[in-house]
């Protein structure tokens, strides 16, 4: 077979952060015009690798060849110029500016006087929006768009740069199923135009549907690549976790006890109506629904972070009406939130702080002073118990990988010895069998 031609070749890439080796000699090869799936648990190094590719930070060592040229020492701007763009998982557009201002940011077309040529900008924007079939006026403000449409605008921006490679980091995590189908349509169209897409997702059915090939990573190392059509979902999982699937979640027999939580006719002003369910002791209760169905909001309401309009919640046989997170914690409830960065971790504080903060009342000693020694010991105990990978407990949590950050959050809530743990989308990176 003839040597295949690749659009992108990343070989032997390593990346070290202070105290952490995030990438250990990984590789990635993407052909022109293919949709390439990137798989791996959080902490496997996918985001780090993409940041290296985008020039957000340089790899410690390794080679990046794009479009036949070796690329060295470049920044995000250069990456955009030579044809790579990235749709971030968490979009951060300028909400108060128009679609066209967002697309042409920093490279607005100018007229002879050096002033912005709004007319040309408007026309150009119309053209790119047409390509991706987004029916919006270029002057619409970003804040009036749905998350899915903001994503489309990001894609339009990538198209406007004439990018040969577009990286999409978990694009479907914040949009509905219907919108995802729309996204897939655009991806196929991009592909038809000869562009390549790197598609990062945890949702294996999507990977199966949209990608041509996949590469799998684990703990900062490269596992293997394969044609999507040739492998099954189970095989992919096996590559991702390095064990076979059967023993991944060993089911422990736990006697199911009395009702712990009883939610009845719970209503919110606008977000959800008449929700009722019960959870028994020792039970794992699954709550599903599309994004936007109000799951997160429902759980936040039960936990006391939002105000309910009507309905009752009974917790451990008593009427439960928390007005803030503290009430719920004191009652024995724990809440691992969906948005780890938004309302989970305290990035610039150390692991010790992050793990003990919810349980802090337990360390108040004589004179209302905190027992710092006990806090250190407990933190050390949990680092060992749930295998948090870190050089020291004084490490700032932002320096850990996503999966390890999540483990610290699990530690935070286990320390409060809760009777019930609410987990909102915990699969956004977790591999603990706790």
């Amino acid at each position, binding site marked *: 077979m003839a040597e295949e031609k690749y659009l992108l070749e990343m070989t032997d890439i390593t990346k070290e952060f202070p105290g952490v080796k995030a990438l250990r000699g990984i590789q990635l090869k993407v052909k022109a015009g293919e949709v390439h799936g990137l798989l791996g648990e959080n902490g496997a190094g996918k985001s780090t690798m993409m940041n290296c590719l985008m020039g957000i930070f340089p790899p410690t060592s390794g080679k990046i060849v794009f479009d036949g040229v070796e690329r060295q020492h470049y920044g995000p701007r250069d990456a955009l110029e030579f044809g790579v763009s990235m749709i971030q998982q968490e979009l951060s557009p300028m909400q108060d500016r128009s679609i066209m201002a967002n697309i042409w940011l920093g490279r607005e077309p100018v007229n002879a006087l050096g002033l912005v040529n709004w007319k040309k900008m408007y026309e150009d924007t119309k053209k790119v929006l047409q390509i991706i079939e987004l029916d919006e006026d270029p002057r619409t403000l970003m804040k009036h768009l749905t998350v899915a449409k903001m994503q489309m605008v990001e894609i339009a921006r990538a198209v406007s740069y004439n990018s040969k490679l577009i990286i999409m980091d978990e694009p479907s995590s914040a949009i509905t199923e219907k919108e995802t189908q729309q996204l897939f349509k655009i991806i196929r169209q991009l592909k038809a135009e000869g562009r390549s897409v790197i598609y990062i997702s945890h949702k294996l059915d999507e990977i199966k549907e949209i990608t041509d090939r996949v590469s799998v990573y684990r703990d900062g190392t490269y596992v293997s690549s394969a044609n999507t059509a040739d492998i099954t979902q189970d095989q992919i999982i096996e590559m991702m976790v390095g064990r076979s699937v059967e023993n991944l979640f060993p089911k422990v027999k736990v006697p199911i006890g009395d009702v712990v939580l009883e939610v009845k006719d719970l209503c919110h002003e606008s977000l959800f109506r008449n929700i009722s369910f019960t959870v028994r002791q020792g039970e794992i209760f699954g709550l599903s629904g599309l994004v936007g169905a109000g799951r997160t909001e429902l759980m936040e309401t039960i936990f006391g972070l939002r105000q309910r309009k009507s309905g009752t919640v009974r917790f451990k046989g008593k009427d439960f009406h928390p007005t803030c997170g503290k009430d719920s*914690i004191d009652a024995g409830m724990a809440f691992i*939130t969906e948005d780890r960065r938004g309302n989970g971790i305290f990035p610039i504080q150390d692991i010790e702080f992050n793990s003990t*903060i919810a349980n802090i009342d337990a360390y108040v000693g004589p004179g*209302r002073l905190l027992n710092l020694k006990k806090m250190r010991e407990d933190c050390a105990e949990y680092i060992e118990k749930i295998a948090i990978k870190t050089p020291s407990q004084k490490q700032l949590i932002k320096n850990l990988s996503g999966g390890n950050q999540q483990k610290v959050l699990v530690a935070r809530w286990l320390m409060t010895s809760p009777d019930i743990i609410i987990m909102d989308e915990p699969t956004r990176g977790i591999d603990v069998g706790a």
Partner: protein
Amino acid sequence: MGKTKNLKELMANNGTYVILIAMCVLITIVRPAFISVDNIMSVLNAATVYGCMALGMTYVIISGGIDLAAGAEVAFAGVLGASFGQTATAAAGKVFPGLPELPFIVPVFITLAAGFLIGAFNGFLISTFNTPPFIVTLGMTTVLRGATLLITGGQPVSNLTNGYVVLGQNLFGVVPSVVLVFLVLIVVDSVLLRRTVFGKSVYAIGTNERAAAVSGVKVPSRKIIIYAFSGLMCSVAGLIVAARANAIHPGAAVGYELIAIASCIIGGASPSGGTGSIRTTVVGALIISVLRNGLTLLKIESSWQTIAVGLVIVFACALDVRRNSSN
């Protein structure tokens, strides 16, 4: 190579200490009088007013906020308290002419309560209406300056009772009592910040407010306490201002909030919240005080001193940005 790395690390971790010591050594070489006990006490004494303000400001800045009303709080609380602390026969018009001479505890209590309540009100506005601290405290500055003028009719409040005189002029050995007050507050505030649930919640709010709420921090009520605490520290500063001169002018402490904020930032607190400590703030305050003292010893005019302090503040902020981006 190894050596430069060590130096770099030393600077990164203890940069402000190194700068402070280097400044002291340099000034001592040029003007040996710097290192005398008297002069050191005067360095500390000069730092007490904005130093006290900076202690409270440290809490506010770590929580991700700012208290621009600090200077006005000093003046208002100081003036209001002093109005109840004038001698029975104050020569130049009393604020409350009919008022007999009250025990010192009364003006002290009124000063502290005024600062605390004003701060609490700031915190209330900030947490209840979710208004930016910058705007709320900027507005309160004007309100308080106006109120201060209203109380005093624009005149200084003078002829204060013996309690003020003792606080302002008494020495414990070689240590002025106001310096002693400052030192005690440093210890108390440091313990409060490092070793209490309240202290931890200040860091939690400043690092990630939403995560703090989920983790059981009562954010609104904590914020009220944080600003009340800043107000309280300002009222101590107001008490010291009045005690030192045995009088307090309604225009006292204008612009001091900036020196207090600068002390925190020079020490290493980030204006974006989540970092900082009492220890580093004190070092920051001392750097400013040593700088001013050294320039005075070098016979450099006070206008130039002000310019120098300003430049140091800008430089320190630039360093902070670098520190953060290198992480």
